[in-house]
């Protein structure tokens, strides 16, 4: 058996992040994070995580060398995972990872060089996928998403966005497993924001257990009341993710399960276009019974409320 196992080298870069994406992935239930990292997560295939600063044993130059050795010797065969947005202000001076020849190396430069030679890149979390919190107004470090960086630097490496603040561990592990089993996703497997349709094809609102309240016009006016959370600011009608079906943390609950409105954390406009979080969506043509919610809701960012705080 031993000799027939295929190793899949992975480099996991943390840029302008809070580490919440890493912590969320540690919460994977089945497979557990131990199954993902130690075992053959798919029979005959092993994820070989060569660089991940939150859990790796080594520190300093030795781990930077490990990263660069993988980059040089595994060109076209390693997967790059990026967590966090990429600071571009001052040519990337606002964030760095390690040093080379006594000089710091910016996150921007790492993503550019490692991204160009990767077999595929996964932008994990809303910051990496769309800019997210790190790029929120006034975007003090001029953070950009991985996709924007790839466009700026003409990098053609296939990109998969797995947004969420944080992303659900199943979204990441499931995407990784599908790459191991079936290869890279076809364009038809991703939506227009490069999100896997397997997880992001339906609106929260479509599958919400409080949907019946909405259809009956029963709205909660304060936290803790029964009713649809629309008037308390729920962004479920404009947010694509399968949270109502999948639920979080081993399925114990999720945001609306805790009677708290969805804040739209998987959407490209998060957080600026989806806040104030506790203010009712406006200028949205919400569906009524029997109407596809998509009818009135797709078609660009104009469906977000316009009351951006800035």
């Amino acid at each position, binding site marked *: 058996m031993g000799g027939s196992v295929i190793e899949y*080298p992975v480099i996991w870069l*943390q840029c*302008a*992040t*809070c*580490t*919440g*994406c890493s912590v969320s992935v*540690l*919460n994977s*239930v089945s497979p557990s994070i*131990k199954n993902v990292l*130690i*075992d053959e997560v798919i029979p005959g295939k*092993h994820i070989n*995580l*060569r*660089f991940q*600063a939150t*859990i*790796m*044993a*080594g*520190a*300093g130059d030795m781990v*930077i*060398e*490990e990263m660069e050795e993988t980059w040089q010797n595994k060109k076209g065969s390693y997967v790059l995972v990026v967590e966090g947005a990429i600071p571009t202000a*001052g040519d990337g*001076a*606002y*964030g*760095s990872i*390690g*040093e080379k020849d006594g*000089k*710091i190396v910016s996150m921007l430069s790492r993503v550019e060089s490692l991204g160009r030679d990767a077999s595929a890149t996964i932008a994990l979390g809303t910051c990496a996928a769309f800019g997210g919190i790190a790029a*929120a107004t*006034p*975007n003090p*470090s001029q*953070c950009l998403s991985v996709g924007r960086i790839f466009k700026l630097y003409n990098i053609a490496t296939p990109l998969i966005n797995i947004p969420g603040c*944080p992303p659900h561990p199943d979204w990441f592990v499931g995407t990784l497993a599908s790459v191991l089993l079936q290869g890279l996703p076809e364009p038809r497997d991703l939506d227009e924001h490069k999100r896997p349709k397997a997880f992001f094809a339906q609106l929260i609102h479509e599958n919400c257990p409080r949907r019946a309240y909405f259809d009956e016009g029963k709205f909660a006016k304060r*936290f*803790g009341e029964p009713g649809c959370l629309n008037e308390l600011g729920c962004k479920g009608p404009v947010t694509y993710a399968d949270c109502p079906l999948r639920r*979080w*943390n*081993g399925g*114990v*609950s999720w*945001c609306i*399960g805790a*009677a*708290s409105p969805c804040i739209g*954390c998987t959407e490209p406009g998060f*957080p600026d276009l989806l*806040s*104030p979080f506790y*203010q009712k969506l406006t200028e949205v043509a919400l569906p009524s019974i029997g109407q596809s919610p998509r009818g009135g809701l797709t078609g660009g960012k104009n469906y977000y409320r316009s009351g951006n705080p*800035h």
Partner: protein
Amino acid sequence: MGRIIIDPVTRIEGHLKIEAVVEDGEVKEARSSGTLFRGIELILRNRDPRDAQRITQRICGVCPTSHSMAAALALDSAFGIADKIPDNGRVMRNLILGAAHIADHILHFYHLTALDYVDVTQIARYEGSSSALNSIRKFIERGELGPFIPRYEGDYRLPDRANQEAIAHYVEALNMRRKAQEMLAIFGGKMPHNCAIMPGGVTEIPTVDKITSFLWRLNELRGFIDNTYIPDVLAIAKVYTDYLEIGGGCGNLLSYGSYDLDGREADLTKRERLFKQGAVSAELNLDEFNPSNIAEQVKHSWYADSSNGRRPTEGETIPQAEKAEAYSWIKSPRYGAKVYEVGPLARVMASYASGSPKVQELVDHVLSELKATPTSLFSVLGRHAARALETKFVADAMPGWLLELKPGEPAYIKSTVPEEATGMGLVEAARGALGHWIEIKQGRIANYQCVVPTTWNASPRDDSEQPGPIEQAITGVKIRDETNPFEIVRIVRSFDPCLACAVHLVTSKGRKLGEVDIL
């Protein structure tokens, strides 16, 4: 004279670089710098104040729960409802925060710390029947050992059997910390970044099934803490005895107190809390905590001197990258102009010095096991022991809190956002004292300041040239092997640094000792 540069310091939260000047095998001088800038306090400005408890959680995905608590407490006081939170809301907040601390401390000991003391590669020689250890042996035989290799070599001291047990516990602890986060999500909705803690209480209403589900996850975790976590810390302390003697730091400890046991006292410094408020000296004298003693100094930080010595309520952040004497983007918070360490050791010792019988019993038991005195807790392994003990202290208090909940009754009180107000939220994050200060004008956030644990612990020298706690803890330490500086990373990790928190306004590093070199 040599210089050790560790960049990045791994197995912590965030981006940290440590530089140490070594002479004759001893650290003469140490500097720490953060290497990422996001500017969350600037991002908060002009937003709806109620969004603060969602956005400040994104300062740190490891300790978001503490930020949501500090923000909610700051907003409670700004909205004038600090003494009106329903008991259900107060207790559920405690339970959510307690679950976060249990998860965080298990993660810190097993997954961020243990690889400094245990040897994964030794499992290649394992011959027993544990399926977890056999799967690790198979992993080693395949030959691709990331993320466990490379690493520092030459100082893994546990006997084979103890080492094997510790590795098995590393794997078990992955499940335990996950279960603690599931427990948190029962009332918190999800983790990281809970959605239930709000100004006014908690959005969730407790139900009997949720209480029971929480209780039995908690009981499983309490079994793990008692029978695995605390014994493992003691086992390592008995082998690495020299680490009870190094890494002492500044000797002064500060705790804001945490876990509100009383919801009717609006003043957080007077409120009855499970962990006591107070400033503790190296002689274990406890002084009353007064937040107006906190001021941030910036002589050695890249900020304009005009912002020097400000209290957080008047905090200002004016970056000035070309400042000659500066070497860090972290400010130096000081308490009464003195250097203070925050964290589990501070919490435990404040409660110990205040005479809490439960804490005294726990601490005295561990000290007798280790044949040590209370002052030897000011050390690398003392911090780990304090962290393990307080995990038990909090976890043991939680079943009683669960029984205080009144199923089906409100956990939230409605309030309105004032046009103008200020608020202060003080709480204990897993890694130490956390304060949020908010100023509201025209119903929007006009100013938001966070003073976080790692700003205290990783602070640079202050106006009177006193180095910060981590700098003091490294200085004077003998390094056995400069290419494998175990001593430095073991000391730094004992503080459980959280750089994303400390560095709200930090920029590039790339600076050398004594000179500023911004790229």
